[in-house]
């Protein structure tokens, strides 16, 4: 079972995601179920249940995006979910490697703060680019950016799996 601090941060962030995405009945349902599963996974120490909760929350975000939620809210929801995922996973790794006997507060805090900084930095740079692109009318520019982003994502991902 992941340590209390990581579990609470992950759960609070996930609840935040569910609240931000609550724009329709479906997203509310998926979000609530997702948070419940995620909490159950954290309490019972089961990574699979926890991941299932995360998948449901991803679904809630995608649906909210598809029905037209504002970009800034969508970004906030995703930021919270990624933070929850990252902190929760870290909690699981602590539970696996260290157990519950030693004090782990210090590394949990350092991890939570630094990963939120990394995510916030990445998403604010991207959001700035996005605002400037959507302001312009050029379809070619948009297309070129689309291709670029996808290609980068796929190669970087490929590299990660090799490592």
């Amino acid at each position, binding site marked *: 079972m992941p340590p209390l601090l990581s579990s609470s941060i992950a759960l609070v962030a996930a609840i935040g995601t569910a609240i931000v995405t609550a724009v329709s009945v479906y997203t509310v349902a998926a979000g609530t179920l997702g948070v419940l599963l995620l909490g159950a996974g954290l309490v019972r120490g089961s990574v699979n249940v926890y991941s299932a909760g995360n998948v449901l929350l991803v679904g809630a975000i995608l649906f909210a995006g598809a029905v037209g939620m504002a970009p800034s809210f969508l970004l906030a929801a995703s930021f919270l979910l990624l933070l929850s995922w990252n902190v929760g996973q870290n909690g699981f790794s602590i539970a696996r490697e260290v157990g519950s006997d030693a004090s782990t507060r210090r590394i949990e805090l350092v991890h939570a703060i*630094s990963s939120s900084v990394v995510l916030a930095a990445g998403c604010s740079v991207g959001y700035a680019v996005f605002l400037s692109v959507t302001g312009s*009318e050029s*379809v070619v520019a948009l297309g070129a950016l689309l291709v670029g982003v996808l290609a980068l994502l796929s190669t970087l991902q490929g590299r990660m799996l090799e490592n």
Partner: protein
Amino acid sequence: MNRTNRIVLVVGLVSSLTGLCLVALPSVASLVSLSGVARTAPIALVGMLSLLLAARYVAGEASASKARRDEQQTRSTEFPTPKHRPRYEHPGAAFARRLESIEWTDRREEDPNERLELRAELREVARTVLARTEQWSRTDIETRLDDGTWTENPQAAAFFADDVVPSLSLWDRVRSLWRSEPVFARRARYAVSELASRFDGDDVSSDVSAAARTSVEDDPTVTTRSFWDGREGSEHREDSETREVSTGRTRGVAAAALGAAGLGIVTLRPALFLLTLFGITVYGYARAVSLPTQTVSVTRTVSETAPDPGQEIEITVSILNTGDETLADIRVVDGVPTGLAVSEGSPTFTTALRPGKEATFSYTVEAVAGVHAYDPALVVTRDVAGVKKRETLHQSSETTITCQLQEHPVSGGGLQRKTTVLPGQVRSRTKGAGVEFHSVREYRHGDPLSRIDWNRKAKTGEFTTVDFREPHLETILLVVDVRAEAYLEPATDCTKPVVRQSVTAAYSIASRLLADSTPVGVTALSPRSCWLSPGTGDVHRRRLRELLLGESAFSWDTPDSEFDASTRLREINQRVPLDTQILFISPLCDDEAREAARRLDAYGYAVSVLSPDPTASPVSTRTCGVGYASLRRQLRLKELRNAGLDVTDWDPSEPLSGVISRE
């Protein structure tokens, strides 16, 4: 990076740059204006492509996680938990395993072998038990077993009387929906509890204890070394004590990001497409970040390196960041040896360290007999966001804790007579000079004058020589059973294997015999060979103690290699002359141990058996697993006694001296 990847990367970079240029310079962008299909088709295409990619990642991830699961089944990748000793086998586990091998699906087989074997074995036991406890004739027993009138318990009666694959009543069928235990296994439990209760006269419950059940499952990894070696097996290329591992936390983010992108493009929601940048951030970060080189030094100090048994020792470990980078996430698992159990504090520690800083943690272990050499400490460091980790084994300095064996006082009035040290010690078979008459034979040239029977010479005129029993000290060889099967945890004290009792007993007996100047040797019945020829004197005594303390055959961890006891016994036979007495110390909880005793006897040695009883437990907690093990063990002891061996049954909670003087 392979060729395709490189091309994709170049395309991605060029395309992104073009896009940025067009955004920055709208005048260039307005030169190219698209309309109609040319305007929508490329965007739709990219959207579909990204959905396809997302699907591919999901599929890839699914197969990868399946592969990981398979891999985990074949070898242990669990992190070490050095706080406790390894789990030794519970005496009831053998029976629990037998029951577990019986499944519902056996019903479909033509010959359910597991079931037939179990029933044959139990029937054999039932015959012996009933013959001893009841006044029934042999045929009586057979008919009573067949028609189920040997007991009042319907379940136990049905085990022998009914079919191996019983036809199920409606109630049984309903019950099978929520209970995984087949009816046959349930009946076996009742039959065993009935038999064991009759044999002991005490009640034995029909449950398999929880301890026996957990004992059937996989063992947790305990030492850092075994964890390291278990991981090394497959793909690791480094030979050294360091390896880098991706934590795999970023898996799944790519699929989600690509899915969002595809959905965003197809549904024309730019906000969704925006989510891709989280994927880029996470992976870009994971690519860009490099793990800080692990520059940590670990020092371990021990409050006492030669403690007495039971003494608490404090271990202090300090970790110093010797590099010039901050280490945000350090996790340390100290390499506590198998035999030591942590009594206070924890051997794991986590911290974040700035350059030049030091952190210290300490814990307390309880000393037990043996030479305990510390394994290297396992240090795991991660980058700040925890996407990569590096595992290192830090062999700081050799730490060894030596704790002497506790000698049970094997003293008391009876011990002055040698026959009471070992139950049933035979007289010397060597004849020659001495006091006690042995035999008369004809004179041979060179016989001492004092032994010629002069009376007979005077009477008949022929020379005869009288032989006496030589007051010759027997040589004694202690054979300690330390096969994997003997590493059982006693039903009462669940942390120390019964082998430790055997070793302590061997040491106590050996030192008592050495005090009487009786030559004693030691060998282990174990895959890890160990031999000390019989001898006497202080040097020999010291060597014997060191051997019982430090030799790997007598160590705290269970041997895992395959072992054929008969070759080891043949070796003993080749090395040891036949007039040596053998004292075989074994819990006798499996048939191979009994065979070993029988075989030594068959070689012609005078064999005594001292058997510490791992199944001894308070009456209230007797379960059918332990009851069955105890029953089988008692039958084995009886069989050995019938074969003329001297067998001493020893409940380890009693002092050894009491047992020996009782005999």
